């Protein structure tokens, strides 16, 4: 079985501040890791993914995430956020059969 825990349900930050959204996963087999973003009134879209290789992956809109196998984490970071980054962020894991499991999401609110 696989599961995802997003440690913060809500993260408020001021514009231009750095942000980290935390994600831990559990799985008995190797998994692939994803972050999706859902802007208000839009569908989920891929932000970035880790399949193998370098543990630091870069995504769209200046986001990056680091895979840490020993801590089973895949935290998402951005050095300077904008108002337009306000959205719901979902961490997900996928196994070799394509089964994708999502966390409960983190609401990022960027304040001016």
């Amino acid at each position, binding site marked *: 079985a696989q599961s995802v825990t997003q440690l913060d349900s809500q993260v408020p930050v001021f514009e231009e501040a750095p942000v980290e959204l935390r994600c831990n996963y559990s799985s008995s087999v190797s998994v692939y890791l994803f972050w999706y973003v859902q802007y208000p009134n839009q*569908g989920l879209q891929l932000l970035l993914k880790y399949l193998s290789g370098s543990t630091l992956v870069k995504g769209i809109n200046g986001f990056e995430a680091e895979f840490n196998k020993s801590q089973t984490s895949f935290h998402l970071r951005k050095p300077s956020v904008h108002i337009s980054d306000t959205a719901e962020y*979902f961490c997900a894991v996928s196994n070799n*059969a394509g089964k*994708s499991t999502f966390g409960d999401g983190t609401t990022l609110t960027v304040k001016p």
Partner: protein
Amino acid sequence: EAGVAQSPRYKIIEKRQSVAFWCNPISGHATLYWYQQILGQGPKLLIQFQNNGVVDDSQLPKDRFSAERLKGVDSTLKIQPAKLEDSAVYLCASSPGTSGTGELFFGEGSRLTVL
């Protein structure tokens, strides 16, 4: 390239009634998913198809939910009879491969309200 299409976008029914949702995935995508997203929670997998076969339906409440994927293309999810706790957004997603390495492409969802 057309995205994942879902209909209807909104549906309001009374408990014990039935409802059906339709999904047309991106052309050529082998894997199709139905997720249930209750307010304040993440998407929960209901069923996963690869081509027209079921890969995982372990979390589908089979006493009331059913789903099919005709000819490995579009799919229908049905709820009969509906309960209050079925109020949620039903998301359809598709992926080009079957290995789990590809991203999921989501539709805009079908919002169900059960009164």
